[in-house]
């Protein structure tokens, strides 16, 4: 086992990388003086992982939509009860989530960290699926799916992904459908588990005022050495075109909600390259569409958007998009305004002074995200999935130049990679 310390004096932070004999990489970020500590374990198994070879076998399997999320729910159960019953004794707040490219389990606690870590690892490493408990879960997840059916913002977002993406499974709802999850069996869950919950596919991130020796002791106890088997999977290749330019749905909302996406095709970057790209897109987005931009001011003053408007860069393994969301009586007009910026984009739109200002703002955000154990482990896991670490963006911010922003702008801001999804109120008509 090797332990390496990586330090960044400027932000008063450091972390230890523990190359654990079990095959799991453990990252521990000390936070002296803090009350809270957090641990997060993540697997690269999300809704996009649908076709793969079984563990140590040449047999391919295609899984029903929603299975990664289903497995997440089931991993809280053991033969002697639910993980929450154990966490109840430590006071930790535990939870999990599944996204397109990952499943994540975590807890946050002010006391009893080591007992909580023991519970986290024990449950993640000891699946307990039976035909009965799998059947029962279908009811609970069915309710969850129905709850999302009633959420206009989720419906608008997922419809946008379906418009932007032709074959990338990011376009499929993470929880699946009531029909797709009805096909799930305990055997399927075990097959998925063996492939994706192998130690080699797991990352453990820990932050808090803790003792590294004790962390290792628990990992030694709960993480047995496992033989790894490289994951062989097919993820549909995504063409550089979009599926639809427009889509809409009627729901019980007071005003039309719009979701506009510009598809980023530069999505296979990792490590330092990924960090630079991510940062460049964020700076570009804030410069052109942020609250200090002339775009925002013009649209706000004309009443096309209100303070609900947001512009963000969303990305993960194999996908990325600039997302604009808000309320408007004229979503089409908002789309036109965004397209106009895309069409007119040139280096003259970015001044050195504006660039420095936005860089400062992002630097402040980064410092802030290192101040809280929960957000820190979350960032750490996300950055690890992209091949970076918790300091990747801080390194990138020192090196980035106006030219980087211009280059990203020229490739990203294309008027033929843009789609609009609208959740229409009952009052508005069907015509686009």
């Amino acid at each position: 086992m090797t332990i390496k310390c990586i330090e960044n004096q400027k932000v008063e932070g450091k972390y230890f990388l523990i190359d654990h004999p079990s095959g799991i990489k453990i990252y521990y970020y000390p936070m002296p003086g803090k009350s809270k500590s957090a641990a997060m374990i993540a697997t690269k198994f999300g809704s996009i992982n649908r076709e793969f070879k079984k563990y140590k076998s040449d047999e391919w399997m295609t899984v029903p939509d929603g299975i990664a999320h289903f497995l997440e729910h089931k991993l809280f159960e053991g033969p002697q009860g639910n993980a929450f019953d154990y966490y109840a004794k430590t006071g930790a707040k535990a939870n999990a989530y599944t996204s397109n490219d990952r499943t994540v389990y975590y807890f946050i606690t002010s006391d009893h960290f080591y007992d909580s870590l023991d519970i986290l690892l024990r449950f993640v490493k000891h699946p307990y699926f039976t035909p009965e408990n799998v059947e029962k879960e279908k009811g609970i997840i069915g309710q969850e799916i129905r709850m999302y059916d009633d959420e206009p913002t989720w419906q608008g977002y997922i419809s946008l992904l379906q418009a932007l993406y032709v074959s990338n499974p990011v376009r499929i709802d993470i929880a699946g459908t009531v029909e797709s999850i009805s096909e799930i069996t305990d055997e399927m869950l075990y097959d998925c588990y063996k492939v994706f919950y192998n130690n080699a596919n797991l990352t453990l991130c820990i932050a808090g005022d803790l003792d590294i020796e004790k962390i290792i002791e628990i990992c030694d106890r709960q993480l047995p050495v496992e033989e790894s088997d490289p994951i062989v999977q097919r993820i549909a290749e995504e063409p550089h075109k979009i599926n639809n330019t427009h889509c809409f749905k009627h729901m019980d909302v007071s005003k039309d909600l719009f979701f506009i996406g510009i598809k980023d095709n530069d999505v296979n970057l990792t490590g330092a390259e990924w960090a630079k790209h991510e940062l460049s897109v964020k700076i570009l987005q804030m410069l052109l569409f942020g609250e200090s931009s002339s775009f925002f001011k013009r649209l706000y003053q004309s009443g096309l958007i209100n303070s609900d408007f947001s512009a963000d860069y969303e990305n993960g393994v194999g996908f990325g998009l600039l997302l604009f969301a808000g309320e408007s009586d004229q979503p089409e007009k908002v789309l036109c305004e965004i397209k106009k910026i895309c069409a007119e984009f040139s280096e003259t739109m970015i001044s050195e002074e504006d660039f420095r200002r936005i860089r400062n703002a992002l630097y402040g955000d980064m410092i802030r995200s290192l101040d809280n154990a929960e957000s820190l482990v979350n960032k750490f896991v996300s950055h690890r999935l992209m091949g970076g670490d918790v300091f990747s963006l801080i390194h990138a911010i020192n090196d980035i130049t106006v030219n980087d922003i211009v280059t990203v702008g020229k490739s990203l801001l294309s008027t033929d990679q843009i789609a609009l999804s609208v959740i229409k109120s009952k009052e508005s008509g069907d015509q686009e």
Partner: protein
Amino acid sequence: MRITYHPIFTNNFKFNSYTLNFLMPLTEENATYCALLAQVLKRGCRKYGEMDQIVGVLESLYGASVTISSDKVGENLSFTVQCYCMDDRFAVEGEEVLGPVLDVLAQLLMHPMTEKGVFRADFVEQEKINHADLIRSMINDKRVYSMIRCKEIMFADSTYRFTGSGTLSCLQTITPESLFEFYQNLLQNSSLLISYIGRKIDLCSYTQHYFPELCQGKDLPVVVSDFVNVKGAKCVEESYDVAQGKLCMGYRFEKDTDYFATRLFNVIYGGSPTSKLFSHVREELSLCYYCSSAIDPFVHSMFISSGIEFDKYEVAKKEIMAQLDDMKQGKISDEEFENGKIYLMDYILGMQDLHGALLSDALRNHMLHITEDIQGQINRIQNLRKEDIISVANCLQLDTVYFLKGNGE
């Protein structure tokens, strides 16, 4: 006006926050005016210009944030003006950050853009439209909306029925003149709590330097309502175009019920992932996707919120009530009781790392006259006995059941 200071000096954070809470009773007018005022003040100030320029200044100051908002706190309203900024020690050129950010905050609050001695008419008109949209959009999230309706029905005779956003009818009557008058009155005649979290500073002199005008006027008392005796529960059902039903229930408890006992009761009953509602109604019986309870100590009430299939209405309601009946009869295991304490103590200790939690704790304690610090709160919880929780359960009276169901049911 009386200013209460609540400083927390610590080097434990990489950023600082400074918050002004102007407190006043919740009324339809106060809620609507405050909500609109928050939006209008954000539009600009004399020194820094309009919104885009102000955001630009804050971006240069390492992404500092300035927020102006109004929130309902029981039957009171807090008009909140707040900033967060990175601590000076991280500034790349060693420049000061806190002072310049406080200046932006002070300019926005004290020196707004005006014309003819009142707020700019174009700002007021546009923000009225935006705010009307916001009030109408409350229907979008049915989970939130169903709870708003439940409270409206339960508190038909109290101003608690209003949300912190106010009403459309009151909004329509507001003019630049009336809003400006309200604003001047707010600065003079509210009760003011100033909280600060961050490295040690002389909080009074910072405040006097940046907000010299906040000095004199009337002090308004905080409202804590009386207990209302329930005469039979109200049951209301309404239909919307939804896939999932929302069941909300409101209970009342007595005014002198111990605050810490109600919090522990809530954790055990429905306020945590190990609560009776979560573990029995959701996990064991799979009756719903979410089912939780929350306490509002200002109005001595508990609210239950759950998402259920339409046809599970009767059985879900019955189970939710059965769990409470169990507690009334003392069916609380030692494990549930101890776990509840651990959960609550963990939460209170963890507040020390979160600006937001520390600030809302400060505001609540200030208004409810709770004097215990974090250690004191922990001690109070440790000393609670099972009987204290059973007696909370026994003083709860069901007031309102609200069910939001689908069309055609």
